[in-house]
């Protein structure tokens, strides 16, 4: 039974390692389970489940495995049985499989999640996990041709959506790993350099010098070596970016938690940054773009995250206004150029997979910013560019000529 339970947990997506399993056996043989299912429940959870986000998975796995088992059921007898012959079968038994299958609605959801999970595992640890649910390349819903936002996220998601929502709740452990991975990728931005500012006592050099000085103390001061990277993160939120909210959150928490930047600022925008940036996406309040640009200079690095997918008007015309304005001085594209001019060391990260970067606005933005997919691989490439390596694509440092606007 116990082995079946282990495989049942694994089948539900809990990554129970053999060490942890043996710890559980250890705890049980020390009498923690007290023969009762309740005891087994809390003991196994404390030993096997390491994230609160996995509690729900565990609960459902436990529930479905032990469903219908008598309350008088004696766990310890089963344990004795197992301990006298501790074999691990290769798979769940027919009976257990049947039991899971009979688990009607929940089973449906579990199977779906399991499939998502399997899919996830194949990508996990690699550099190429892309997007979120990936139910639709363009994040469903999106825009109608006139550039007016459709409130709902579009059709075909109802059943899927429930499961997807659950997935974010339940499988947040996947995100956990990802945040670490993104954090590690961002770490490469670190550029240690002798900093100006107050000097620090260099202990190694002081000892060396003192020894050379026959024990007469010689204190050596040197400027500290600090990471000098200053990062401004601008993120697109809402609309077509909704499906990627989770992914952006990951990038954000990784960047925010990384304490290796000398300075870190972040603002939000919708579709394209104009004269106003937002600190708070619920209240749409924040400083003007001009003010933000005043505070930063060419020693900064700007990372813009967005799908660059919008109506061309929003990019080429004032504030995305419908009517044509003869002066483009405040169009979205102008603001983008202005940011790039102020901070040449800038990149654009796009959560959409690279192969579908076909939207006209994407092409247009790529003339201003080198664009990379928001994957580990993409972030690494972006970091390379910011560190001074040549990108494989045109990276126009000079302002875009008007003709590129005229594709419209």
């Amino acid at each position: 039974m116990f082995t079946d339970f282990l495989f049942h947990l694994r089948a539900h997506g809990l990554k129970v390692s053999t060490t942890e399993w043996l710890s559980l056996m250890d705890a049980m043989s020390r009498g923690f389970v007290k023969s009762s299912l309740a005891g087994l429940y809390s003991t196994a959870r404390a030993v096997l489940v390491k994230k609160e986000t996995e509690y729900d998975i565990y609960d459902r796995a436990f529930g479905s495995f032990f469903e219908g088992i008598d309350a008088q059921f004696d766990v310890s007898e089963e344990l004795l049985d197992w301990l006298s012959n501790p074999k691990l079968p290769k798979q769940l038994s027919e009976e257990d499989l049947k039991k899971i299958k009979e688990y009607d609605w929940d089973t449906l959801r579990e199977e779906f999640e399991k499939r998502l999970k399997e899919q996830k595992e194949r990508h996990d640890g690699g550099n190429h996990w892309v997007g979120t649910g990936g139910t639709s390349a363009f994040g469903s819903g999106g825009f109608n041709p006139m550039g007016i936002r459709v409130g709902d996220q579009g059709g075909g998601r109802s059943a899927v959506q429930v499961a997807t929502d659950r997935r974010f709740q339940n499988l947040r452990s996947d995100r956990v790993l990802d945040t670490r991975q993104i954090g590690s990728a961002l770490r490469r931005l670190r550029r240690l350099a002798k900093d100006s500012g107050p000097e620090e006592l260099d202990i190694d050099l002081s000892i060396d010098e003192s020894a050379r000085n026959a024990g007469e103390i010689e204190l050596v001061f040197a400027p500290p070596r600090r990471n000098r990277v200053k990062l401004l993160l601008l993120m697109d939120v809402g609309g077509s970016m909704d499906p990627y909210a989770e992914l952006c959150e990951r990038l954000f928490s990784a960047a925010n938690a990384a304490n290796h930047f000398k300075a870190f600022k972040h603002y939000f925008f919708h579709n394209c940054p104009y004269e106003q940036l937002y600190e708070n996406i619920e209240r749409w309040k924040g400083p003007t773009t001009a003010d933000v640009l005043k505070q930063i200079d060419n020693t900064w690095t700007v990372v813009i995250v967005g799908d660059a997918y919008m109506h061309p008007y929003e990019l080429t015309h004032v504030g995305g206004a419908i009517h044509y304005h003869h002066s483009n001085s405040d169009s979205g594209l102008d603001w983008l150029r202005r940011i790039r001019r102020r901070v040449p060391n800038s990149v654009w990260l796009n959560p959409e997979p690279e192969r579908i970067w076909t939207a006209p606005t994407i092409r247009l933005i790529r003339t201003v910013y080198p664009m990379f997919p928001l994957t580990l691989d993409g972030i690494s490439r972006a970091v390379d560019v910011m560190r001074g390596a040549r990108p494989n694509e045109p990276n126009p440092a000079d302002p875009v000529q008007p003709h590129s606007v005229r594709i419209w």
Partner: protein
Amino acid sequence: MGIDQFKGTADYITSAELRDAVNISVALEKPLLIKGEPGTGKTRLAEAIADQLNLELINWNVKSTSKAVDGLYVYDTVQRLNDSRFGGGDVDNIRHYIKYGALGRAIAADERKVVLVDEIDKADMEFPNDLLHELDRMSFTVDETGDVISAKQRPIVVITSNNEKELPDAFLRRCIFHFIAFPEKDLMEQIVRVHHPDVEQDLLDQALLRFYWLREQPEIRKRPSTSELIDWIAAMRRAGISPASIEEKLPFLGVLLKRETDLSAIKQARSRSGSPRRFGM
């Protein structure tokens, strides 16, 4: 060791599941990792364990600049250099300048200690990984002297995390884990009574009602915690607020809500609902 060592103390109320987790961690000699909302008593747990088992508690407050090795030992080169120049101290004996950190002290001690590694997620990402070996073996080597310090009695290690950073899997695999869920009303009543033994039932009921209502408001970014509830009740008792006026006025709201935006959001929510007597109920 028996398996039911820890039962919670008179002034620290635990759930049965948390007690189990503590006892399992003590019995299996594995570090206990505790997560939970701020104010749910993660740090207090270590004190309660030390209290109950009558052991000394050694506190290691992790900072963003903390390094794993600091918890084991620090070699005070500057002191030694100073002593060698100006006399004083036993300069020849390098051991004299090895200072044990929190974990190092616990491992080197003759008696069993409780070590609290508080807010491990504040440190650098690699911090937990750097401690894996030491937590497994409960021994470490002092590089400067080559001394190997091994625990005679494995310390009980309690680690808290606020989820600011995710912890590496290899580290998690070695821990016993418990997430302190926010206390339900019944448990909360017990907890409040520990701090306010003679609180009037009326006041307590009203305060709890308001408190849980506040926590449910979607506008609130930083939800009030247990410790804030206890302070709130203390403030109201001292000011002699009548239970009836709690609903009406929500006095001393600043004790519960620490963010300006939360305060104004609640004020708005109350004015939206018209009569202040009936908001949100």
